[in-house]
């Protein structure tokens, strides 16, 4: 009886995590829509999602604490809960940064320059990473988690590219300065979102194997 209650609480945790992941996807989707279509409604949605993500974080945190205190889980269950605790802080950061992007887009109206730099590509890559990291959590898919970690390089390279493009733009005309700084901030946020997605994928791996790929598998083999 006690055990089955524990199981159902774990399942509840799983569902809440999926919902939080979905909210992150929606937040960054809305933020990128706001960016590329100058859509004020989308920007509004992104900031609403961010609030919802914050609430969800508190909720999941509470659930994890209750599980830890009341059930005193061990081994795999403990890994699951502790990785969930770490994951939600990454998700929360994704939500924050999506909202920040949406906020900056309110001041950007120059569509021409926007489409010249590769920020949209970065957005697409970041959305892909967030979606796939959540997918890997939902399906406990190690392979997908690994591919997310590897895909981070693509996003990093895009960031370098965007940076160079913006340097060139400022070089051409100093009047572009402020605008370019806003863009580089968005690019940096997207790059950070990619890092958080990578973290999520790593936590997925940890919760399955008990070790981190980057640190080798010594821990997992114990």
């Amino acid at each position: 009886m006690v055990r089955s209650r524990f199981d159902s609480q774990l399942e509840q945790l799983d569902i809440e995590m999926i919902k939080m992941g979905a909210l992150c996807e929606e937040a960054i989707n809305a933020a990128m829509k706001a960016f590329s279509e100058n859509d004020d409604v989308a920007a509004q949605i992104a900031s609403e999602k961010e609030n919802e993500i914050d609430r969800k974080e508190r909720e999941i945190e509470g659930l994890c604490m209750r599980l830890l205190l009341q059930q005193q889980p061990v081994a795999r269950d403990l890994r699951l809960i502790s990785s969930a605790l770490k994951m939600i802080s990454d998700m929360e950061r994704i939500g924050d940064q999506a909202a920040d992007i949406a906020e900056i887009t309110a001041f950007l109206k120059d569509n021409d320059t926007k489409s010249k730099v590769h920020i949209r590509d970065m957005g697409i890559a970041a959305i892909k990473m967030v979606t796939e990291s959540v997918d890997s959590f939902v399906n406990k898919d190690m392979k997908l988690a690994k591919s997310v970690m590897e895909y981070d390089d693509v996003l990093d390279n895009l960031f370098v590219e965007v940076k160079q493009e913006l340097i060139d733009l400022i070089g051409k005309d100093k009047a572009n300065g402020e605008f370019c700084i806003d863009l580089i901030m968005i690019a940096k946020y997207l790059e950070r979102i990619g890092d958080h997605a990578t973290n999520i994928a790593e936590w997925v791996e940890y919760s399955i194997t008990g070790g981190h790929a980057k640190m080798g598998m010594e821990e997992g083999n114990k």
Partner: protein
Amino acid sequence: MTKRIFWAIFGVAMVMMLAVVGLVFGMMYAFFSAEQREDLRSQAFYVAAGIEDDQMNYLEQMQSPLNRITWVDENGVVLFDSKANPEKMDNHRERVEIAAAFENKEGFSQRYSNTLSEKTVYYALRLEDGTVVRVSDLTISPIALFFTMTQPLAFILAFAILFSVFLALQTAKKITKPINDIDLEQPELAVVYDELTPLLRRIAVQNKQIYWQMRELKCQKQEFDTITSNMQEGLLVLDAQGDVLSYNTGALQLMGIETPREKANVFQLNRSEGFRRSVDSALAGIHREETIQIDGKICKIFANPVMQEDTLAGAILLLFDVTEQEEREKLRREFTANVSHELKTPLTSISGFAEIMKNGMVQGEDVPRFAGKIYDEAQRLIQMIQNIIKLSKLDEKQRNMEREAVDLELLIQDTVKRLEPIAEKKGVTISVATQTAVFIGVKQVLQEMIYNLSDNAIRYNYENGKVNISLENKEKEIVITVSDTGMGIAPANQARVFERFYRANESRSKETEGTGLGLSIVKHGAMLHNGKINLVSELSKGTKITLTFPKQ
């Protein structure tokens, strides 16, 4: 059960063994004590006889007797003792056995040593002369005896315990073996204990019941699966926690899932916003409808809570693929918007001209010109409405469209004759190359198609351009080709020119006076006759449209 039987048997064996050992021990001790007493007694008689014959001499001559012999006079003073100096001994009159001997001729008593390990048994006998002779024997006490026996006893007990463990185990196993061997699938065949027969019979009956119930359930499930798997719509049955209890192939296809995990939560299948809202709402007990997008498909979800006596038991999700419907709906909306716009344009002109005339701003000689314009616009309106009616008829594929043998060659010649004045006006020359071809079809529609194609070829042509109309009667199909040397259609627009009211170039629509419905009618006409349309066009070079009709 084996364990219990084992402990029961073992327990009984132990209790019995201890009891038997105790009893035997007691009885044996009592028996030996009695023997000893008898022994002492007969010895006392011998000694007494000896004393009566020989007095002290007898006692003194006796060499180290087996038992201690004491002789006291009638006052209790010790006269002789075989183990001690009689002078140092106190008066024995008060000793239990001696006092009893004085009184009853013989006396008996036993005393334990301080450590309880030894017991001295005394027997006293009064002689004829009033003196008393006492014989005593030192033996070990029952407790001491018990302690000296400990080691052999322990050996015996250990052996007995081992043996009874073994026996108890064997017996217990033997008792339970037939019960373990009962085949619960066919309990009625087992011949075990009479006591178990009613139970086994009951199990047999219930087995049968379960079998039938399972079969029925399986049938029902199969029925349900067959029905649901043949459904186009997706069906998901959830429990109160949102775990998927049942699904059909339609649902998997719609949601783009290959193989779902066992007992997956519904949010593992899809986590989009609308989906979450509808599931959460249904699991809160409220019906909800949502339209969501899955992989480019538009999907309508009906989420229904399932209540069982006021408590929520789960939810049923129905998913419909409404992509086509939505697209058609979009087309319909566009069509309505276009129709209203297209109808409004000539009406606005008519109304404008009529208003000027009504206000008396038109001089008498100008009236025919204005009236002519009103007439032209009205004609255009009528033509457009006629086209719309034609299209809607084609849309409905009305059965009452009678098919007949149509001489296409004649039809083309007629059409060209009708179009010649317009062509002349534009300076376009029409050349016709036909073969004889008779086709079973709807004459009116075919005529309309050829007219529209030729009309377009002239209308969207340059001055001094050319129009070629050809008719080929091939073995299996009839091919009509209309080509021109006109403006052509841009590649981006080529796919759309068959849409209703679509015009490759909006700005030209005014001067060319088209309705935007011509090619749409051609497309529907071709569909009606199972024909195919092929369009090849290059901007500023010309357009070639080929109609291919299969011969029935």
